[in-house]
């Protein structure tokens, strides 16, 4: 209490007491002094034993880029010079509003005329066992930084819980200080509140490249240690060693004092536009307040709040109207910016620019010709400009086409026409950065006859790699040819300029591993794709990375996500597998029991020789599957882009015409190929003789047994457009029939486009191509077969059994039940 002015008791001025010597509390006093330095006598209480400093710069202090002295905002001289009493290191413990006094922890009592609460926020500590162990800290003040620096001196492992702004800055600092850092983040994307999935993915990659381990979708179960922290255990059982654990999972407005004093408190201390609380003598400002339903966790709103507060204190009220905020991550070398609302929605239009070679992602969200949000990664130079346009609500319709290229481009000489901009480029201007192609080269390749985007990509390679210059190339085409530009092949969907084949080729060539990665590297024009491309990408990745790729459930159509077929009334149908169309009393009994137990309104024999149970409710599916599993049955994948059935006839075992054991072969083929995901549904049949009772010649793969062996047929389809199969070849043994089948399926899996059945695929690529790969090229066939069987080793895992055991229960149970009379159950 060394700074207490001696004349305090005789001072007749009104006494303003400030609780909180932080950023908002001191700024408020600064604003007040700027308006009227003599009006109030000021006393500031601070819990921290030091002068006021810039809290946001704790990150650079941790990273070793700044010292504490560098970040002090108001030194001791400021307090003394302005006659401010600072009582640091003795927090206020209670407010007595009736007596108008505050009491500190040490028992000192101070009376006030006006009280300003600026207590900031408390870090949120997740309530897991071990949270109180020594070595578990938050990241909020200088003491925390000192603890981290001491731990870093000792070296070793650190875990940061929380992959938001604060957590990542802590992780960055600790890793620069030589610790081995693991970040545990509950959400699938880092900084999900500020960044969209695409930018979050880029950020994760960049941090991993710097040696941090980033675990997303990871839920902390417990912090372990004996007397001090030794590690963090995740809900999935993983144990991560750690000598230091930093919890940065969020903050809560610090409202305890205010609540105890009976002030109106919601999420924060409720204030009006002049920062006055429910008691006219008490004001509040900073992160601890709630204004108009909003609480803030950034400094920019504090400045506005403090201005309005000071205006009110000197009786020239203006009024605070809430703030729009933007965020920048302070990790040197990684530029991330986000502002406003990027959740999309009605009337919102996304303008996306991706430049994979420079690691840049920019997204500006426009609604009614106004910018409503922006997410920038890699190149944040224009963040301020977008934020300014956003705050001022400027009409950007004139800039629309060039907006995404940034201020320099969009404002440049009023050339608001992209074609004019392209026309103005010189011949040696580089168009395609990936392949180093100039405008002159593109023009001359068009002159030599490449009259479509695809032809240009095929000849001079412009736009053939990442596709970010597609728009430029298209403009050059129109400029050079006028209307003669040939429409290219169909793109995968409106989110990309690439076709299916290009995407697949690039996935393999660039060894891509996730949907966000594909979207970034291939310059998707939407932030998270659409219902056409997401399932396709999910399949292509699954096919390219057997056993490795983690299926994205949210990119699957309902039937594949629910492992059952949705019906028009919202119930599901369930078709268990009956190998080769065979069944037995146990299976039939189990099916009969299920039908009765769950009151299924209908059972039908399908055209695929199995039984379909209709009218099952989503909630009952796991129990139905458990019952069917108990009788030895597994999913029939009647819902999937996958192997459906293998239809058979009775064959030589019973039929007087039968030449081979078609039933037995059918069972073997089904056992080999069930469970595999395909571009589309896939049906197989085996007939015992050319009378073909199993209709093998309208199946994707059909086997017709003859005396001398097996005829193999491919590419048949019933459907709207009936197509009989083409004869692929004839083989002598069952084993060869199976090997060819496996190779054919794999070729289809690897080469057909998503949602392309075998019939249109074969018409597109030609039967000769299939024959060349499967029949003529024995090593090639063998390799295809081996790849299929390898991938099968991961996929023959009954999805019903996993769900029956409780996996992904959230797909089946409602989140809550509401009975209007009884309220929530």
């Amino acid at each position, binding site marked *: 209490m060394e700074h207490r002015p001696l004349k305090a008791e005789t001072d007749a001025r009104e006494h303003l007491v400030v609780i909180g010597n932080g950023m908002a509390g001191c700024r408020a006093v600064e604003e007040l002094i700027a308006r009227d330095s003599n009006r109030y006598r000021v006393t500031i209480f601070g819990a921290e034993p030091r002068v006021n400093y810039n809290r946001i710069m704790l990150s650079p202090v941790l990273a070793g880029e700044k010292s504490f002295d560098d970040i002090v905002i108001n030194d001791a001289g400021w307090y003394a010079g302005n006659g401010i009493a600072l009582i640091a290191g003795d927090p206020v413990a209670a407010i007595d509003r009736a007596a108008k006094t505050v009491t500190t922890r040490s028992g000192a009592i101070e009376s006030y005329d006006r009280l300003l609460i600026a207590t900031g926020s408390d870090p949120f500590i997740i309530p897991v066992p071990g949270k109180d162990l020594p070595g578990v800290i938050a990241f909020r003040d200088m003491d925390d930084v000192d603890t981290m620096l001491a731990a870093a001196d000792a070296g070793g492992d650190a875990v940061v819980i929380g992959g938001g702004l604060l957590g990542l800055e802590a992780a960055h600092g600790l890793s620069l200080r030589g610790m081995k850092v693991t970040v545990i983040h509950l959400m699938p994307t880092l900084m999900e509140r500020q960044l969209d999935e695409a930018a979050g993915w880029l950020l994760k990659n960049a941090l991993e490249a710097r040696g941090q381990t980033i675990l997303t979708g990871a839920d902390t179960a417990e912090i372990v240690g004996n007397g001090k922290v030794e590690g963090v255990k995740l809900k999935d059982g993983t144990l991560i060693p750690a000598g230091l654990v930093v919890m940065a999972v969020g903050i809560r407005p610090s409202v305890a004092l205010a609540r105890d004093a009976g002030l109106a408190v919601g999420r924060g201390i409720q204030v009006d536009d002049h920062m006055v609380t429910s008691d006219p003598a008490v004001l509040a400002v900073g992160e601890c307040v709630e204004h108009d339903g909003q609480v803030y966790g950034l400094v920019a709103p504090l400045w506005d709040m403090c201005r309005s507060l000071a205006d009110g204190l000197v009786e020239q009220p203006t009024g605070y109207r809430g703030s729009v905020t933007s965020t920048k991550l302070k990790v040197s070398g990684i530029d991330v910016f986000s502002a406003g609302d990027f*959740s999309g*929605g009605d009337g919102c239009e996304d303008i996306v620019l991706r430049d994979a070679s420079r690691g840049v992602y920019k997204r500006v969200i426009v609604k009614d010709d106004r910018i409503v949000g922006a997410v920038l990664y890699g190149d944040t130079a224009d963040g301020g400009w977008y934020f300014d346009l956003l705050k001022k609500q400027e009409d950007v319709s004139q800039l629309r086409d060039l907006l995404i290229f940034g201020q320099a481009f969009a404002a440049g000489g009023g050339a608001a026409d992209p074609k004019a901009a392209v026309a103005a480029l010189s011949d040696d201007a580089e168009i395609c950065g990936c392949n180093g192609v100039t405008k002159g080269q593109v023009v001359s390749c068009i002159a030599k006859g490449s009259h479509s985007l695809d032809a240009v990509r095929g000849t001079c390679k412009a736009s053939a790699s990442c596709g970010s210059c597609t728009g430029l190339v298209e403009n050059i085409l129109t400029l050079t040819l006028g209307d003669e530009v040939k429409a290219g092949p169909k793109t995968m969907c409106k989110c990309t300029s690439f076709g299916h084949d290009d995407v697949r080729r690039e996935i393999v060539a660039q060894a891509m591993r996730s949907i966000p990665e594909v979207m970034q590297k291939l310059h998707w024009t939407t932030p998270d794709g*659409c*219902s056409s491309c997401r399932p396709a990408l999910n399949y292509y990745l699954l096919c390219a990375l057997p056993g490795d790729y983690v299926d994205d459930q949210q990119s699957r159509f309902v039937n594949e996500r629910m492992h059952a077929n949705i019906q*028009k009334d919202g119930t599901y149908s369930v078709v268990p597998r009956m190998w080769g169309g065979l069944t037995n009393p146990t299976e039939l009994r189990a099916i009969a029991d299920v039908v009765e137990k769950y009151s299924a309104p209908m059972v039908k024999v399908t055209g695929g020789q199995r039984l379909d149970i209709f009218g099952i409710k989503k909630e009952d599916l796991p129990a139905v599957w458990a019952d069917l599993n108990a009788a030895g049955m597994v999913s029939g994948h009647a819902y999937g882009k996958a192997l459906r059935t293998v239809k058979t006839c009775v064959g030589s075992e019973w039929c007087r015409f039968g030449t081979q054991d078609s039933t037995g072969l059918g069972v073997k083929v089904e056992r080999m190929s069930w469970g595999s995901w395909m571009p589309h549904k896939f049906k197989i049949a085996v007939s015992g003789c050319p009378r073909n009772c199993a209709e093998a010649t309208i199946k994707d793969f059909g086997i017709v047994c003859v005396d001398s062996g097996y005829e193999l047929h491919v590419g048949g389809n019933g459907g709207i457009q009936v197509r009989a199969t083409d004869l692929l070849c004839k083989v002598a043994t069952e084993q060869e029939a199976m090997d060819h089948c496996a190779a054919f399926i794999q070729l289809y899996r690897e080469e057909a486009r998503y949602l392309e059945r075998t019939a249109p695929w074969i018409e597109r690529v030609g039967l000769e191509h299939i024959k060349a790969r499967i029949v003529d090229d024995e090593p090639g066939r063998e390799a295809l077969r081996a790849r299929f069987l390898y991938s099968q080793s991961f996929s023959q895992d009954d999805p019903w059994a996993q769900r029956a055991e409780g996996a992904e229960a*959230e797909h089946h149970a409602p989140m809550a*039940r509401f009975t*209007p009379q009884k309220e929530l159950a």
Partner: protein
Amino acid sequence: MTTAEWLDIGWVDQIPVRGSRTVQVEGGDDIAVFRTAEGKIFALLDRCPHKHGRLSQGIVHGGAVACPLHNWRISLSTGEALGEDKGCTPTVPVKIDGGRVLICRASTLKAAA
């Protein structure tokens, strides 16, 4: 836990990102509660304006869901069909409080009735 106007239906984290969960309303249609890639939460009647498909079972992308039955795209914030299609699903106001999802009681009753 309930309050007069808002129904507390659970934690935000119980809804998969780019996915949805349902709330059963006795004697009425379900309410579908969505969570977008950006973490925004929306609630709509679980019924497509086209032929009553369960929107909760669709693919969520951007601020819309594609209906599982015939692929109409429905805006999560307004319930309107997007693009060429016309129709609208009732929406239910949502608020988030301390990680809990609350939906408006009156709208829930009205929508599900």
